[in-house]
């Protein structure tokens, strides 16, 4: 079974992220990058499915696919050190400023060429926060979408998931090949072991340019994006409130505040 996991390097959420005044794109150079935390669940799910396949005597391989700048190689290494077998890194200056539409076009091109039974995405990237890529990939690859999974079971050629909804969950199934995305309640991502970190250094990473992958440069990057930023501004911070120390009357004080605001 060929399992492809899509992994994105994102700026640290805890860092002070800013848009660049010049082109209103995220200033990725200014902050530390790290693996999109939500993609660790996608990697873990891929590894577990591959392990189950191998235990059942079938062959299985987990390929990481990532589109991003040079630094994205760090996240690819992390994925390989968790146990993925190989990786494809789409790296080209022409990709800078790509939106979801063009990212999905480029990734679909690569995944289509690599061949797959299962594509696994995280539920969203913590920088763009769109949560649309799995659906776009399914559309472009022409396969079913079994997304927002909090539980995944692969049984032969059938994949069954629990798809989280606002009120609970749906049980959903599809036949492979398919695209799935997982939420952070699906599993417990493993930490890379020392052995895994050493082994990752020797695992193959194929770096592709747009030309290598046969991707139309006009369809990606800022020029290929379907949306544009008009303007942006930092939101003024909230006004400082009143903070009191509990001297035995903290509960009464909260009640007084709530009453003054007419909540009780």
């Amino acid at each position, binding site marked *: 079974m060929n399992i492809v996991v899509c992994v994105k390097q994102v700026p640290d959420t805890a860092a002070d992220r800013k848009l660049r005044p010049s082109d209103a794109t995220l200033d990725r150079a200014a902050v530390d990058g790290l693996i999109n935390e939500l993609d660790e669940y996608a990697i873990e799910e891929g590894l577990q499915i591959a392990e189950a396949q191998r235990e059942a005597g079938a062959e299985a391989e987990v390929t990481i696919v990532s589109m991003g700048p040079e630094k994205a190689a760090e996240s690819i290494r992390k994925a390989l050190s968790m146990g993925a077998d190989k990786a494809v890194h789409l790296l080209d200056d022409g990709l800078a400023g790509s*939106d979801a539409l063009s990212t999905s076009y480029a990734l679909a091109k690569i995944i289509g060429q690599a061949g797959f039974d299962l594509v696994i995405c995280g539920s969203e990237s913590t920088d763009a*926060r769109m949560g*649309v890529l799995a659906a776009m990939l399914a559309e472009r690859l022409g396969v079913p979408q079994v997304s927002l999974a909090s539980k995944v079971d692969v049984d032969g050629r059938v994949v069954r998931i629990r798809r989280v909804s606002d009120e609970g969950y*749906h049980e959903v199934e599809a036949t492979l090949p398919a695209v799935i995305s997982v939420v952070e309640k699906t599993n417990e991502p493993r930490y890379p072991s020392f052995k895994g970190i050493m082994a990752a250094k020797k695992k193959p990473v194929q770096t592709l340019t747009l030309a290598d992958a046969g991707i139309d440069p006009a369809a990606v990057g800022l020029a290929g994006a*379907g949306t544009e930023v*008009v303007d*942006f501004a930092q939101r003024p911070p909230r006004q400082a409130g009143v*903070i009191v120390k509990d001297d035995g009357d903290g509960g009464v004080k909260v009640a007084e505040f709530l*009453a003054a605001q007419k*909540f009780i």
Partner: protein
Amino acid sequence: MAEVLVLAEHADGEVKKVTCELLTLARKFGEPAVVWTGPGAEQGQRRCAEFGAARIYVDADPAFDRYVVAPTAELLAELVSDKAPVLVLIAGTGEGKEIAARLAVKTDSGLITDAVDLSADADGNPVAEQSIFGGSTVVHSRVKRGTPIIAMRPHSVAPEPAAGAAELSPVSLAGAADGATITGHVVAERGERPDLTEASIVVSGGRGTGSPEGFGIIEKLADALGAAVGASRAVTDAGWYPHQFQVGQTGKTVSPQLYMAIGISGAIQHRAGMQTSKTIVAINKDPEAPIFELADYGVVGDLFTVVPQLLDEISRRKQL
């Protein structure tokens, strides 16, 4: 006048509030036309009319409820090509965003998700406001290719009534109605409490509650205030409270009149889901907890002494 397509969110013929919000916005840009998938349009017709829908395109095929996302996106794509709308508005729920995503690919159109407001630029085209990086930055953006497809964050704008004919206009999907199959639906118990995303008061508990039993005090306070219960990810990850009550980046976004954060540190991912609340009250024993930066009123203290006293005080005041 050009049309604006609004995808209806409905359950058992009842139109969801978010659809009324979308209709309110749609009126700024053209004639609102609702797209209704599955049965129930006759029951929903009145409410669509009350919020200004000129017509309702209905495909009543029950198959829409059996498949994930794909057939709805296909129907919308067919309507986009037939009716040439100036804008498509979809509720920015998990499902809505995915429908929007597939529609964007099918029609090669720009997509904006998680918009909190829409205004018209000088040419009358929609400009979307988004709040990004955990709410620290406000961005305005627009679609520059194809038909603008915008997924609006629910509860961001107030629905305003306006009269419309809401004439039913049957349509049917030409393409395939298939994809991943839905085989069951499990609805989590909510009990008598208000819906988390619609409640005017939300009481949320964090790791500071210490255990599932400790978390019980959050429910007690919520009930005393007629509030919904929320939880931090630390709580849902530990299994002390169900996932669908998680507030934050990977949980629900709430914007109530009053948000109480109890035993919650206020990590940026949590703040992303609650910082537009009108009034924020925090109870935490650590004076350095970042939640206090947001709080209108904060008590530095042990929640297991402050909250019981608050409960007593609330019931005392109720008896006055």
